[in-house]
């Protein structure tokens, strides 16, 4: 097969460029490394460019949710080029290294943050057959790289020679290390259901998305990634009103921009991971495997678009939560994690393991739908029990604070009392 421009362009459309190049040039020793390098460059560039889109979307959506207009000057009526203008502004600013800063740590921090965020995309399956590397231990790779990203925050906090930065870094580490526990446990739930650590196989196993099997685990996972990316209501690491901007307070110009980019890329990846392990990734009712009679793999673009839409929905929920919820206090944050999320996710993991094994042993011929129903039922029961326990605890706490008689609404007696005092003053 020789090189043909029309076939080449068509292979762009159905995302089979790599297969096409392999077909044309055959088993050249230089081809495979070259294709890998091209893939790396394309993915890293596209991901960085997507930050413009994502940043603009977030500002616009947040503004709309808060009854503002948002960016509306640069680039037409919708302010679409606002992020471009911002980046140009940051590029032209001076990078100021504070006095007494640990120069090495200070300069390495944004690089480490950005690099770890981009590295995560290596294992993300984008469409059927389109993935950087199909690692047999893909999920484990994601965990490993995201645990390394903490190092960037520590470097920034330590290297800036600023107490707010250091406080931010301490908060960041205590928060990220804690929330990694439920994150990893709830990542294990799809692993157990699929029986593999490879992200590609997990996507392919999901004829029914795992969110319908184990919605509770999905919700815990989503809360954990909110905390892992330092988003509201878990944005204590950069709480503006308390520690100004946390670990990146001393960074100016594009170095600050790199941190922002790293944050947005991490959010994109975590949304993508959520969509991949719980919402079926690029799956779209089997259409993602569609190949037309003339060999045009139309399923690949369909799968890709389906994945993008799922990521966009997950990201929209990120923004929604940010616009809606106030920030946690640090003790509430850690309490919430260690006293609710970790035990609950452990219980979920055990239940999923036992149920899955029991189904395999006692009902080997069960349909996928039956398996889903059993898991879903167990999840609903666990959810109701947990809500009931939380309700009782909250009630006990309230009674301990206000005395046993003060149940229900406390508005009326308070109002009545103040009315009486007002009356007394009036007399």
């Amino acid at each position, binding site marked *: 097969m020789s090189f043909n421009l029309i076939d080449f362009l068509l292979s762009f459309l159905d995302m089979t460029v790599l297969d096409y190049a392999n077909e044309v040039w055959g088993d050249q020793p230089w081809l495979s490394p070259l294709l890998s390098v091209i893939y790396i460059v394309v993915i890293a560039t596209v991901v960085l460019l997507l930050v413009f889109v994502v940043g603009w979307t977030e500002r616009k959506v947040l503004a709309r949710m808060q009854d503002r207009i948002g960016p509306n000057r640069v680039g037409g009526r919708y302010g679409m080029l606002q992020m471009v203008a911002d980046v140009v502004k940051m590029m032209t600013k001076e990078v100021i290294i504070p006095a007494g800063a640990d120069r090495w*740590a200070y300069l390495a921090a944004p690089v480490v943050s950005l690099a770890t965020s981009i590295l995560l995309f290596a294992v993300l399956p984008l469409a059927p057959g389109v993935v950087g590397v199909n690692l047999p*231990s893909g999920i*484990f790779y994601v965990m490993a790289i995201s*645990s390394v990203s*903490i*190092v960037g925050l520590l470097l920034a906090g*330590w290297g800036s020679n600023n107490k707010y930065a250091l406080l931010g870094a301490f908060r960041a580490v205590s928060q990220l290390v804690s929330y990694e526990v439920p994150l990893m446990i709830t990542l294990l739930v799809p692993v157990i259901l699929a029986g593999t650590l490879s992200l590609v196989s997990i996507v392919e196993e999901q004829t029914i998305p795992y969110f319908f099997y184990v919605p509770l685990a999905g919700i815990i996972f989503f809360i954990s990634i909110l905390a892992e990316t330092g988003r509201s209501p878990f944005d204590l690491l950069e709480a503006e009103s308390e520690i100004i901007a946390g670990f990146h307070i001393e960074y100016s110009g594009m170095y600050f921009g790199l941190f922002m980019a790293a944050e947005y890329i991490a959010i994109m990846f975590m949304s993508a991971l959520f969509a991949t392990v719980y919402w079926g990734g690029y799956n779209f009712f089997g259409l993602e495997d569609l190949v037309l009679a003339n060999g045009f793999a139309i399923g690949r673009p369909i799968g890709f678009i389906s994945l993008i839409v799922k990521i966009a929905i997950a990201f929209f929920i990120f923004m929604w939560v940010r616009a809606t919820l106030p920030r946690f206090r640090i003790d509430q944050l850690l309490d919430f994690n260690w006293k609710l999320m970790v035990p609950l996710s452990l219980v979920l993991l055990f239940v999923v393991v036992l149920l899955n094994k029991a189904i395999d042993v006692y009902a080997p011929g069960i349909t996928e739908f039956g398996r889903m129903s059993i898991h879903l039922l167990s999840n609903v029961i666990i959810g109701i029990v947990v809500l009931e326990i939380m309700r009782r605890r909250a009630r006990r706490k309230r009674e301990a604070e206000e005395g046993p008689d003060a149940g229900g609404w406390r508005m009326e007696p308070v109002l009545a009392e103040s009315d009486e005092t007002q009356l007394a003053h009036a007399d």
Partner: protein
Amino acid sequence: MTFLTFLTSLTSEQVVFILASILTIGAALVVVTNRNLFHAALALMASFLGVAGIYITLDAGFLAAAQLLVYIGAISILIIFAIMVTRRMMQVSESPFNSQRGLGFFVAVAGFLIVAVVILQWFGGEAFAAKPPVAPAVLSNAVAALGVSFVNPNAFALPFIVISILLLAALIGAIYIAWPRQRIDPAEDEA
């Protein structure tokens, strides 16, 4: 010229191995000679990263990820935390050597020689040959095989359980140490 021919004769795998080795050894040298403890800890991380790279050239991707997760993600962060909360804040510089440096050097060299001699005795010239090829089926199934061997009584079930008990004991010990001995001020405790 001979150096050039040597360079062009390298396979991509060997290049990666050499780069990873340079990173590992160079960073390790920085760890033991740097006067700034924080920088030494950072160099230790780089050294761990190089080791992970060597694991990858040996087709042990799972081990490499474990190396990142455990050594960089957990142990190095713990070390940095220990430095942060025990030393004076910034740029403490002190001599990395103490009175036992001669002994330490001797132990390091002796350890290296013992390992090198054992490997040479065992494998001879084969130790310098390229690694034998592994079937792709074995590699793609390696993680599952590892998991099975951890729960197989004929493989590593007993060591696995013993290590689990050790970790559990350590966890309980940590909780016991951190547990408040007596309530000094109940109001403060409640808050």
